């Protein structure tokens, strides 16, 4: 009896604790969502002046904001594709072949993961200015590819750990050449790792602010636009865009992970 009650108190406490942590995580997001409906028009857009949908319409009149969002998407798509291709090839190549300097490349891959982003940002800034690459879309893409590659490689590598080399040999023995073997055997086997890496790369790219902040030139991304607007108070249309992005990602996740909302079978 006593033990049961104790267990009950314990699970009650667990629920309260977890609820508090989730509240902590979602509180600022609720601020964003609520303020996207705030009818206030005076800076810094904090006091509540009534409910309105206007900002969602206003948003599509705000060319600066939309083009920043467009830049973010272009950079994220291009750098995700590049990082995924380069990273996947690199992971497979480093797994299959021995060559001089492999240990060094391996070591270099950890740098963008562990080093504070600001250091990567300023080091890219200094080198871009040294070799006179004008800051803009190109430097942003180069920077994003740089910090995305390691994450793709680690994801693909995790998948390679259980990789059976003999199926490739079988394919070659049966007369397929290297290219066919790579596209029809290697890639499909590694697909989940590649997809995981690509998703992570995309997520990192669209939210990156620190590294982009040092290499953007005139090409503003959405996070940089937010950074700029923070000085004068984040306008409700920025909140509206953030709310739309949040809804889009949640919908995407629910669609791709259809078992998420279903109750899992008890094992």
């Amino acid at each position, binding site marked *: 009896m006593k033990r049961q009650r104790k267990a009950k108190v314990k699970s009650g406490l667990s629920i309260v604790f977890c609820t508090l942590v989730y509240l902590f995580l979602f*509180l*600022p997001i609720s601020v964003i969502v609520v303020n996207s409906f705030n009818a206030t028009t005076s800076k810094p857009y*904090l006091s509540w002046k009534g409910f309105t949908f206007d900002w969602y319409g206003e948003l599509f009149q705000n060319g600066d904001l939309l083009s920043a969002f467009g830049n973010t998407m272009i950079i994220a798509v291009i750098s995700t594709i590049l990082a995924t291709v380069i990273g996947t*090839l690199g992971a497979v190549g*480093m797994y299959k072949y021995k060559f001089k300097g492999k240990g060094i490349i391996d070591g*270099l891959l950890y740098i963008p993961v562990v080093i504070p*982003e600001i250091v990567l940002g300023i080091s890219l800034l200094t080198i871009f200015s040294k070799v006179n690459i004008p800051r803009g879309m190109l430097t942003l893409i180069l920077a994003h590819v740089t910090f995305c590659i390691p994450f793709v490689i680690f*994801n693909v590598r995790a998948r390679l750990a259980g990789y059976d080399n003999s199926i490739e040999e079988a394919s070659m023995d049966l007369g397929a050449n290297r290219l066919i073997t790579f596209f029809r055997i290697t890639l499909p086997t590694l697909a989940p790792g590649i997809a995981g890496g690509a998703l992570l790369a995309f997520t990192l790219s669209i939210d990156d602010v620190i590294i982009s902040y040092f290499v953007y030139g005139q090409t503003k991304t959405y996070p940089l636009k937010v950074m700029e607007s923070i000085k004068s108070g984040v306008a409700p249309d920025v909140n509206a865009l953030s709310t739309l*992005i949040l809804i889009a990602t949640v919908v995407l996740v629910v669609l791709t992970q259809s078992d998420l909302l279903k109750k899992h079978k008890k094992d």
Partner: protein
Amino acid sequence: MKKSKHEIKANTIPAFIMVGPVTLCMVLLVAIPLIYVAVMSFCSIDDYYNVVFKFTFANYERLVSLDYLKIYARSLVIALMTTVMCIIIGYPFAYIIARTKSRRKKLLYMLVIIPFWTNSLIRIYGWRTFLGTNGWINNLLQSLHIVNEPVDFLFHQGTTVLGMVYCLIPFMILPLYTAIEKLDGSLLEASSDLGAKPAATFFKIIFPLTSSGIFSGSIMVFIPCLGYFFVSDILGGGNTDMIGNLIERQFQSGNNWPLGAALSIILIVVTLLLVKLYQKLGGDMESLGV
């Protein structure tokens, strides 16, 4: 078995195609830029703040000024407090969701990640809206007549730590979740069957088996914290400058790149030392990336 010359040659081209691009990227965009930063930290500037390649120790001499030392100390304190807070909140939380028998376990896990798909700046700004002098809490307190004057919650070291914990806590929760989920439940039963009190089970079984998660989580929280200049900008209001803010200023408004480079070298050295320590404690580098 030695490979024939022919075989080695046949492997060179595919190996080159596969490893070439990543090598190029890592060398040109990681190694060389960092080496260049190290070189620059010994350079001088002219009257117009242009970098001049004249060897000097002056940048490093400036690093030991009292003002800067205070900022390093503050950075370490904030990063340490952030890491400790992340462990205190993250460990029990990860434990509960990793070991829950609830059928919505996956949803509970995803709910940790979802907030991080919203732009981090705007979420930090959300805290400012919430805590500011005309923010939600103050409005509530005033309308309930609990306080007459708005309370200044913002721009203390504490609010910067709050923002850092908020930004970085998933990097603590996720590795802990992985480590705790791997824990074999029968070990815990065995321990309690053999008469161990819950505390003993925790310190002798659970903690040693999940410490890897604490180590990798701490690395992933402590190091980035030193460089997240925007959190102390937005929530600390310039009162809680950290080393990241110092670096940012040298490369933007201050425009003294060699000094900024020398400051960055401090961060690189701290990172290397911590990673070495992590490896010494048996930490696995692979678990930092995913």
